[in-house]
């Protein structure tokens, strides 16, 4: 007998378990709601707002709202898609996201979600902030230009690696990622290349050193299939790693 715990996503029945958020249930059902700061392995913080959907007339983030029976969730109306594109455009103009010059291009979740939502241009006035690069770590390089403050590295370092290497500091538009080390440099932190925090970055902010452009254009994560089919960067990371190790 099928459970009566269901809600509707764009008219389609989605079953859910107790304690599920809308996002949990939707992803389990093989459906897709675009998201950047969400990763099913970590407690959601609802910060990027890309997953905001219309739930019975109220706009709520799918990653934080507990699922409930008979909810009507709209993930595809023009209003929802428009505001989602605006949020992505805001993220694009806030940092310096020069896709053609970024190694992560083609395997970047920000770019993939932007393609998925048919964002054609950054639209808003660029902030062009002056941001630096931290190359002090022997194995990892950090590009502040590309950080979207999703907080995943912070959560992963704290909750999985037990190191608290990353944290978000400052306030408002001056919020920035900082490193927990005596000098403030990543190289003097406890981060190691195998840390979970390194692999959860959805964009090209945290990249490994000593290798570059290993996957040619055309063979990158989102080159042939959309993110709704391929899934998150972090979810593909472990799979890629194990296949490489097996080579």
């Amino acid at each position: 007998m099928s459970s009566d715990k269901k809600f509707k996503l764009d008219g389609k029945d989605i079953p859910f378990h107790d304690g599920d958020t809308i996002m949990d249930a939707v992803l389990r059902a093989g459906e897709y709601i675009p998201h950047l700061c969400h990763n099913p392995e970590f407690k959601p913080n609802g910060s990027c707002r890309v997953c905001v959907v219309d739930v019975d007339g109220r706009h709520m983030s799918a990653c934080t709202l507990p699922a409930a029976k008979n909810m009507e969730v709209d993930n595809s109306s023009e209003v929802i898609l428009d505001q989602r594109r605006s949020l992505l455009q805001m993220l694009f103009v806030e940092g310096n996201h020069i896709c053609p010059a970024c190694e992560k291009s083609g395997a970047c979740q920000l770019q993939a979600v932007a393609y998925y939502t048919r964002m054609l241009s950054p639209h808003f006035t660029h902030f062009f902030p002056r941001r630096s690069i931290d190359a002090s770590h022997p194995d990892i390089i950090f590009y502040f230009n590309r950080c979207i403050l999703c907080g995943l590295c912070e959560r992963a370092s704290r909750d999985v690696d037990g190191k608290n290497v990353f944290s978000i500091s400052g306030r408002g538009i001056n919020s920035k990622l900082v490193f927990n080390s005596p000098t403030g440099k990543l190289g003097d932190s406890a981060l190691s290349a195998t840390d979970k925090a390194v692999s959860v970055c959805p964009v090209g902010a945290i990249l490994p050193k000593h290798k570059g452009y290993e996957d040619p254009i055309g063979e990158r994560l989102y080159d042939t299939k959309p993110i709704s089919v391929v899934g998150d960067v972090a979810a593909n990371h472990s799979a890629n790693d194990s296949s490489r190790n097996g080579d």
Partner: protein
Amino acid sequence: MNDLETTITGLLSDTGNSSDRLLQYLCTIQEIYSHIPEEVVELLAEKLHIPPVQIYGLVDFYSFLHREARGDYDILFSDNITDRMLGNQALINSLCNKLGVKRGEPRPDNRVTVDVTSCTGICDQGPAMLVNGRVVSRLDEERIQAIADLVEAGTSLANWPESFFVVEDNIQRRDILLSDLIFDGSAIENLLKNGSDAILEVLELSGLRGRGGAGFMTANKWRFCRDTEADEHYVVCNADEGEPGTFKDRVLLKSYADNLFEGMTLCAGVIGAKKGLLYLRGEYRYLVEALEETLQKRRDNKLLGENILGHEGFDFDIEIHLGAGAYICGEESALIESLEGKRGIPRVRPPFPVTNGYLEKPTVVNNVETFFAAAKISVLGADWFWSVGTEESYGTKLLSISGDCSRPGIYEFPFGVSINEILEACGADDVQAVQVAGAAGTTIPPQEFNRTIAFEDIATAGSFMIFSGQRKLIDMVQNFAHFFCHESCGLCTPCRVGGSLMKDLVEKVIAGHATRYDLNEMRNIGLVMKQTSHCGLGATAPNHVLDTLHKFPYIYEQQLAHAGFEPAFDLDAALGAAREITGRNDADAHIKDG
């Protein structure tokens, strides 16, 4: 260095050495050293077993904490629109000139810093400033000259004229709440006699709704909290009165603290809390001493502490926690984060504080005015409360009235009072607009002055700012846009980035470069902020822009450029660097018509 270590060790041992108190330690350290020295961060990190970045995270979040030393006199001008309307900009410039200091930078001899801060809650007696946490009200050129002289002479604040620091209650109208004010335990006695169910019943009957603006039923909140099983429950009073133009809590805290504490104790008795916390905005630090005295007096009278009024097992005490310059901490979950010694970032909700609040325990968070009203209702009964108000909004509301009127101050009106009646009472005519409920509220045009203050019409925590026909309303929009940009916590995209884009577009309007296209952009950004923000700050931040675009289109149209499109940057200004390098500044080195 040894001195410093002694100070820190003393500070930690006095208060139990816990990272929950981190913000409180930092407030004290800021007061002693006028900044948070690096050595202190290292010491604290070591003693509290937390990473130094966590401490810097707080320093960089709260406006009143600094990495670099401020001047011996740290002067912060209140910069709400009402201060601006009273001429604070000229006074700031005047003081900077007299002291030879740049805004925001300490003078090289470290004598003084002159800077601005968000609304300090002295709008009825402004323009105002804070000097090392103390309020100087009613500033004018004469007072500025005197202050400059006192600073140059190095006169200690204790020896400044007392008249400088006078902040009057300024209550212009009283109704049922502000009359018959004797609370020496009668609410608590009532509770001990009749039990918590009886109190909840009276509160429910009275229909009391939260006075912070959201209007949740107080009886329900207390009951949910009481009925949530946990080893500890907490009572929290939100005295982070940060909404620009609000100052009624300042008066309640200064002159009626007994009534507030009575309400908190009543709540504690109902929900079974042993500990209460008063979260006091940093701008009201000057009230702490008197508040502590009142708390001590109540302990002496057995109204706080162990076995309250001799009732075995009824233990409850209240601790004051200071904020440090962050409007977002008025949001209840951000306030709780701040109480726990963290950055004031609003939590994901649900769960709500009634089940998972302070230290994840069930917590009642209420406004100062709500505790105050609850105490009175519990003694005087629901009928008393019903005697005024409307069917959906019983009782009265304290309004903080400022701006263009002859009698600014505190007005207690029954709910259902119209804007027209209020304007008449405070002596305002030729009114162009009223901003109700603060920067996050609603801009009301004259054709809507028959609307009323009530949960079913215009809900408000009490801010009421009046703008005469002589004012440029776009100045208000500019002031609020900067305010929200400065106060956004930065967690979510629409508030963090959208607020910044909005501020830039408002500046474009003011510079005379905006076009209709830009106005449409402002509308769209505003809607995205409203619909997608994580908390109420982001969702209400664009209200002033959306309201004025809709109801006061002329304030924008006067400023529009004629072209259909204007670039976001000034091309001629962008060539400034090239002119500097080439040493040319003749007419041909400029682009004509900007």
